[in-house]
């Protein structure tokens, strides 16, 4: 590819990512500068996520006093994301992506445990709403029909500092019960094989 074509190719992908956020593409897509790649556990597709330089994230907005992107019920949503991290990030000494599949039952149980009271029917409304919001912004991959959730492609950019903070959250939150996955998708690896993990790591960058 000539430099001009290359620049146009990069610009196209950048434009896509800047408007839509992380993108799911086929694994034979050539790499694009500035975009991190992370494979799905089954290797059938991969995500491309914009990588920002250190210190160029949302913290800069805060420093400049500019308002961040608003989200409905920010605290409730952040709590549900934290709970999903507890449920889906099993190997806490490694990266958060791709994680394992968690279930709605797990999320509900941890939510009730966090609140320190039995599960209530009103929890479900809050949890589902938060899961949908997080799915829309690609923090989570939420399969509403199956009631299953995975960490979204945005977690690819979590560095060691962030992971340390997340470990603290997992320590505070109660441990989730064992996931009972629907038998409809037995191929979904609840515990990804080592080969998958290394493949995901190899495709990074």
């Amino acid at each position: 590819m000539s430099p001009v074509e290359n620049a146009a190719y990069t610009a196209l992908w950048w434009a896509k990512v800047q408007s839509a956020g992380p993108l799911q593409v086929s694994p034979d897509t050539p790499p694009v500068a500035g975009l991190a790649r992370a494979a799905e556990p089954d290797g059938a597709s991969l995500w491309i996520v914009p990588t920002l330089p250190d210190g160029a994230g949302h913290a800069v907005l805060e420093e400049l006093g500019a308002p961040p992107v608003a989200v409905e019920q920010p605290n409730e949503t952040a709590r549900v994301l934290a709970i999903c991290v507890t449920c889906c990030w099993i190997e806490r000494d490694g990266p958060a992506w791709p994680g394992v599949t968690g279930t709605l039952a797990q999320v509900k149980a941890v939510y009730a445990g966090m609140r320190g009271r039995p599960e209530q029917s009103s929890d479900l409304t809050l949890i589902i709403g938060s899961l949908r919001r997080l799915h829309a912004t690609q923090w989570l991959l939420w399969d509403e029909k199956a009631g299953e959730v995975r960490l979204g492609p945005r977690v690819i950019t979590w560095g060691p500092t962030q992971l340390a903070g997340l470990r603290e959250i997992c320590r505070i939150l109660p441990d989730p019960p064992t996931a009972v996955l629907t038998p409809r998708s037995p191929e979904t690896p609840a515990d990804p094989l080592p080969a998958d993990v290394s493949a995901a790591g190899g495709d990074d960058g």
Partner: protein
Amino acid sequence: MDATLLDAEAEAAVLRVYRQIFAVLAREAGAMIVDPELLDVDQAILDAFAEAGSEGLTVEQATLACRAFPHDVIVRRFEVLRQYGAITKLVDRPNELRHRAAFAPYVMLMFLRRMSVQGGQAELHQLLTLEAHSVSDSRATEAEGQASIQRLTKVFRLLGNELAILVSTSTSAQLRENAQLAWGNERLIEQAEKVHRIVLERWPSLHQVCTQLRMALAAYADAVQLAAGRLVERAGTTRALGLLPIESWLTFTRGSDVEALASVLDGLLFDAAAPDFSPETMLEAVETGRRTGTARMAPPRPSGEASVPESAAATDREDLRAEAERVLAGRESVSIVEVVDDAGDWITARRILAELTAAHLHDELDYELVWSDGMRIDSSSGTPWATEGTFRRVSR
């Protein structure tokens, strides 16, 4: 008589130069605030005079040379400059049309422009070098040394005051814009200390004014420290002191065309607008979530407080009931004399009678103690004298 006239003339000359200089100073001060264009007009007029050579210029020639500016503005400025003596008639006679410009205003203009750009630090360095030079001159007198030190004291006091006022009153954006001009020169202080050292060694009697200078220097250093502290505190984690204030960015984004905006963003990759969840915010949300969770649970403390006195009273009541039942032993009523005789001695009987009385008075227990008129006297029993009466159940 001659001497006084000469003095007067010398004074008049000094006064003239001062007026020329301060004409520009006054203009400059006005121009910088209201209308920087006026300063350009002054410069253009003085430039025109420089081009004109020794012939000088008439007002009309000057306005022609400064065609770039409106005619009436030039004429007005010309008048002002003439009034202040920056422009004078070529020959001082009533109908002289040609004028000449003095060089001092122009020098001052250049000087002031430089000062306004660089904050006058270079000039201050030069001044300090000159002062050091003059006080180390072998012909310098003690009075000159004192004057020199006093000048420096004033300079540093003004500098320190300006900075301190900026620190205490202005916004950090203003501070950032102005402070860089006024602060941060270790070398300034070093140079001033050098002058101070020379003076103090040559004329130890000047130690008092030298102390004043030292205090001014220390105050300046403190002000620099304060300003630096405030800026660093405001700069955030990036420590980018040169970061433009947010107003500048807003003005730029509003005032730029599409091309300029696009060129700025060229080569920069952004994420799509999405809410951010940093681990810190998640942790905070979880913590607050747990707090509201525990707050909603039944508060254990009030329930404990309520049950403790309840149980004490209940224990008391049950004790009395057990005693009463033991005395009654299944019967509906029992004679007191019998109870007293069963107890054996008076000490025990007294305790039992007290408990039966308590059971009688207790509003939750259905027993009563009724005394009658008779009395039993039996010297052989443990309690010889016993008033007759009955202890019995009542039904409510």
